[in-house]
């Protein structure tokens, strides 16, 4: 009974015009967000004559896969086969993401569940590092990479990604929710710290893994190698996309096809992991 009455009271707080206005507002902005993505999808499916129709159309009329065929044709004639760019991106993304999840979780566990000298200091430096963009450290990183002899290798992109700070931060905040009693019980049963980490903690924080995976995946998937990779054979896909687009009008079709491919993979991962990510973000807050 009481729940119904509070429900009614809540209704009273909300006016019909207010709701209408807010819904409209939401719809307009949703359109602003989605229309460019719709363009990306429908352009990839448009035949060439529709790509250059005047006035331009939002939706495709006669969907075709010609652009994808053209793309493979175009790239099979190029010096570096297209499959190589795809491989580079997939390799960098998978290796970097796997290492990040493992390293960041291993470090997050003691930070979240044990108090030891240096732990707090390290975590506050990680939080501080969220406050500046990695662009700040690009130049010294180049110097460090060249000292290590990693310039023009996958390692220059993959290894720094292992130690991304956002992932550690989110993982540590999430792990704090694990009840201490559970870990104490395992300890009394004689489990080692490593066993506790792999057998108890890791299975419990699956939602946080998925979050780290999507964040790391998205960052690495979009990387073009920058100044760290200069060999054509090692360049990732976004670089190839840039090259195709530079080709201008004749490349509009294949360009749209690559763009669709670039977009669809991270979005698909997000769709399957959305609820886990929201669950992780619940504990993302900064303590005062």
């Amino acid at each position: 009974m009481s729940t119904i009455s509070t429900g009614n009271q809540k209704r009273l707080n909300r006016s019909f015009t207010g709701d209408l206005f807010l819904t409209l507002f939401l719809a307009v902005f949703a359109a602003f967000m989605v229309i460019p993505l719709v363009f990306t999808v429908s352009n990839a499916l448009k035949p060439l004559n529709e790509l250059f129709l005047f006035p331009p159309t939002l939706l495709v009329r006669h969907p075709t896969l010609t652009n994808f065929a053209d793309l493979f044709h175009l790239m099979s004639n190029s010096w570096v086969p297209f499959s190589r760019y795809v491989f580079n991106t997939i390799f960098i993304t998978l290796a970097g993401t796997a290492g990040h999840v493992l390293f960041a979780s291993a470090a997050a566990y003691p930070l979240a569940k044990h108090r030891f000298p240096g732990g707090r200091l390290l975590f506050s430096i990680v939080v501080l590092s969220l406050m500046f963009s990695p662009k700040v450290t690009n130049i010294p990183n180049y110097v460090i990479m060249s000292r290590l002899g990693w310039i023009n290798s996958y390692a220059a992109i993959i290894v720094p990604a292992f130690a991304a700070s956002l992932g550690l931060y989110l993982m540590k905040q999430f792990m704090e929710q694990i009840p201490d009693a559970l870990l104490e019980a395992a300890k009394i049963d004689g489990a080692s710290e490593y066993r506790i980490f792999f057998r108890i903690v890791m299975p419990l924080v699956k939602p946080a893994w998925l979050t780290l995976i999507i964040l790391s995946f998205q960052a690495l998937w979009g990387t073009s190698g920058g100044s760290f990779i200069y060999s054509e054979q090692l360049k990732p896909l976004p670089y190839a996309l840039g090259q195709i687009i530079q080709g201008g009008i004749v490349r509009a079709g294949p360009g749209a096809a690559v763009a669709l491919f670039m977009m669809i993979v991270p979005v698909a991962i997000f769709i399957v992991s959305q609820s886990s990510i929201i669950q992780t973000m619940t504990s993302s807050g900064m303590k005062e």
Partner: protein
Amino acid sequence: MDRAEIEGPSRQEQAARSMLPSALRWRLLEAKKHRHSYVLLAPYTILFLLFTVLPVLIAIVISFTSFNLLEFPKWVGWHNYTRMFLEDEVFLIAVKNTFLFAGIVGPLSYLMCFVFAWLVNELKPRTRALMTLFFYAPSISGNVFFIWQIIFSGDRYGYVNGFLLDLGIIQQPIIFLKNEQYVLWIVLLVQLWLSLGVGFLAFIAGLQTVDRTLFEAGAVDGIRNRWQELWFITLPSMRPQLMFGAVMQITASFAVADVSTQLAGFPSVNYAAHTIVTHLEDYGSIRFEMGYASAIATMLFIVMVGSNIVVQKLLRKVGD
């Protein structure tokens, strides 16, 4: 005699050990007890120090030198900093643009993250999931923002031009991306489009954790409308997420570069969309004036961290 000699050193040792500050000794003992923690922590920490902490320190040191990667750095004192503000006119344009971006994109994207999270949160679960996807998708879609290049393309096949020509609003296509008047605002628009990222998700999550019974209690205490509910109950309960979201949005809003380079070109027309980061990239990866580039990076570091700290202080006052 013998005994005393044997005991002697050990007593000295004891004395020496007790001379170690007891705090330090306690720390060493603690550290030993936690060696498993350190083992788990080590791989991440080593890489983090090597690729995040050390580079900041190196940048600060190099910023006081003249360094071209080939010769040994030469100490020049504050010269790079005075050059930045007194001799480099393009840097001042970059600063102006960066602050314009950060001043508009920062607060606006923060507000967007919150307002959309708030509205989306009132929807039914299925619609909520779909809307979350719509709003979040641009920020994770890789380099798809290049689609804006086609939308604002300077010929009649650009969507905006096509639309305006078709309606008869303009007679000639506008070359948006090569026009000083428009290009900055287009980059700004695209940056906003990309800005509903992790902060947005954190707000959705934060709103879902607000204790529903607080609303009932609030109604009893005389809260009359949605806005009061928001300010006195919702916002204070999700303050930690608000602070996290602020860090994400502020840091991103100062780092505008890729969108500018991609859409406006490099350099953009009359440096209209030039930012501190593109200026940094110019000196760092094209001209190889690493000392000067590091001075720019150091300034950017100070500005980003400084504004984050100020905003954190302000957000602590929300709902008080």
